[in-house]
């Protein structure tokens, strides 16, 4: 049974440590969501809110991390069939210790991600035949740069000495990404797979590799040049254990699955969107971390 073998391997690889480094992960992979209409470049601002409860069983360390990210995002078409996307996030986050009520803010530039996709298949564009179902497949990859500060000083009394409560990961990571969209009349299906391969940062810390996947259904209804596109889907994120100085910390990584509900509105050159994610199943940081509901909104200009 492969699934049990997988768990067996997991157990073998895990070196127990007493480090209690868990806390809400600010370093989740960039998720693209359902992007504004293809073949048009865009530039916009996206705002993401998510929160986690950490150290669930601790009398003194129980905390809540609230991550607020304002992100500049854009898509450009430098060549036919090639799209380039960039994400420049800025964080306004904070950690609240539940026992004392002490708040530690975390503000600044986070990690920039740049991705390029090749449009492998596009039945809408590729030929003049009218298809009942149109398929669009983008395959690409990119990098996440260490532009956000990663400062992890165990001996500082001011910092939250936690690798997960940082502006960035401190590492150059590599991303592979596949986006698939199928359209049938006004209905559509969108699938997005993203794998992030991490590297060890200069502080000797390496975040677990991360695999995000999502599948959603959307319905597009239009009036003149205005459209509204409600959508619903499932989003699953999974991460391996982090490694610090070559020692694996079992109390990191895990999975969370969310139900996603949202809508996009297109007003000529303007696109607005809102998306809400409710966790439906999760096991993060060995059960010591709980992801709460998330909200994403954006305002984007198409050109």
């Amino acid at each position, binding site marked *: 049974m492969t699934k049990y073998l997988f768990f067996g391997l997991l157990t073998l690889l895990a070196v127990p440590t007493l480090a209690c480094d868990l806390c809400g992960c600010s370093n989740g992979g960039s998720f693209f969501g359902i992007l504004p209409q293809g073949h048009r470049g865009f530039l916009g601002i996206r705002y993401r809110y998510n929160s986690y409860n950490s150290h669930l*069983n601790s009398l003194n360390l129980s905390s809540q991390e609230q991550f607020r990210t304002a992100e500049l995002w854009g898509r450009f078409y430098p060549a036919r069939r090639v799209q380039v996307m960039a994400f420049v996030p800025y964080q306004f986050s904070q950690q609240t210790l539940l026992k004392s009520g002490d708040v530690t803010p975390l503000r600044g530039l986070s990690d920039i991600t740049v991705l390029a996709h090749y449009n492998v298949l596009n039945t809408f564009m590729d030929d003049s035949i009218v298809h009942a179902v149109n398929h669009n497949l983008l395959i690409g990859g990119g990098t996440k740069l260490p532009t956000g500060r990663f400062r992890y000083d165990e001996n500082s*009394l001011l910092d939250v000495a936690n690798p997960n409560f940082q502006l960035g990961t401190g590492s150059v990571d590599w991303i592979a990404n596949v986006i698939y969209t199928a359209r049938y009349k006004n209905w559509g299906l969108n699938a997005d797979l993203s794998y992030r391969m991490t590297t060890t940062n200069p502080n000797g810390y390496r975040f677990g590799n*991360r695999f995000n996947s999502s599948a959603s259904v959307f319905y597009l209804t239009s009036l003149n040049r205005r459209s509204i596109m409600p959508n619903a889907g499932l989003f699953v994120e999974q991460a391996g254990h982090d490694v610090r100085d070559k020692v694996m910390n079992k*109390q990191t990584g895990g999975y969370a699955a969310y139900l996603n509900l949202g809508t996009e509105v297109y007003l000529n050159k303007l696109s607005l969107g809102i998306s809400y994610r409710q966790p439906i199943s999760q096991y993060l940081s060995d059960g010591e971390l709980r992801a709460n509901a998330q909200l994403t909104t954006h305002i984007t200009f198409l050109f």
Partner: protein
Amino acid sequence: MRIHFSYQLIVSVLIASISVISCKKDDVDVIDPAVKNSVSIQFENRVGDQKLVLGTPAYKNAAGEPFALTTLNYFISNISLKKEDGTVQKFPNQYFLVRQADAASQVITLKDVPSGNYSEMSFMVGVDSAKSVSPVSERVGALDVTGYGTDGMYWSWNSGYIFLKIEGTSTAVPATVSASQSFAMHVGGYGGGWNGSAKTVNNLRTVTVPMTTKATVRGNIAPEIHLFVDALTIFNGPNKISLATTNSVHMPAAATPIADNYKTMFQVDHVHNDKQ
């Protein structure tokens, strides 16, 4: 660990985790005391709500006196774990010296703990009188009096161990008392006499702390009990200690209020029961 790029795996992991969870509910959790595992206990020294960083003058006691700590050492012995059914598992003849300057000393491991659900732990701060008067050849490891270097934990003049030692600096210490404004409190005294002299007071203290999450020892679970040790309690416990007046304690009789304070400084913050 790497995650392979496959949906199959995600699905199988999801199914596996669901089946693991459901198995847990269905299976009868058989506790066989003959099956043993280890229990580790971590002593995380803190000062109030802050981390303890040696040499940092970031702390203040109830008297409003700012201070820094340079040394915090204490002996832990006579540990016992109490099961939820009330039976007590003892770990005699195991002595540990926890030193803030040595991270490895802050995690102690009890071996061969019978399977069971433990809801309370108890230990002595210090070295019991029987061990204190035992032959030198029996006092090894943490009790080796020649092994402390300059960080002595033994009074040769009193044939006794220093149970707890806290040292530091404070601007509240009069410069006329100590030019460097440093303080030192050494607590000992097992209640015996030395060379026929009068018996000292007994400053041995036993600490009993509950565990809100039970430590569930199984063949595949070696629990980790994470203790928070609040050094501020040494000054701010039932007896309020002012560094302006109490800054040099080296005799058992004077140390009793401090021992009564540190008896209350331990708390089980959380317990990890990770499957191995």
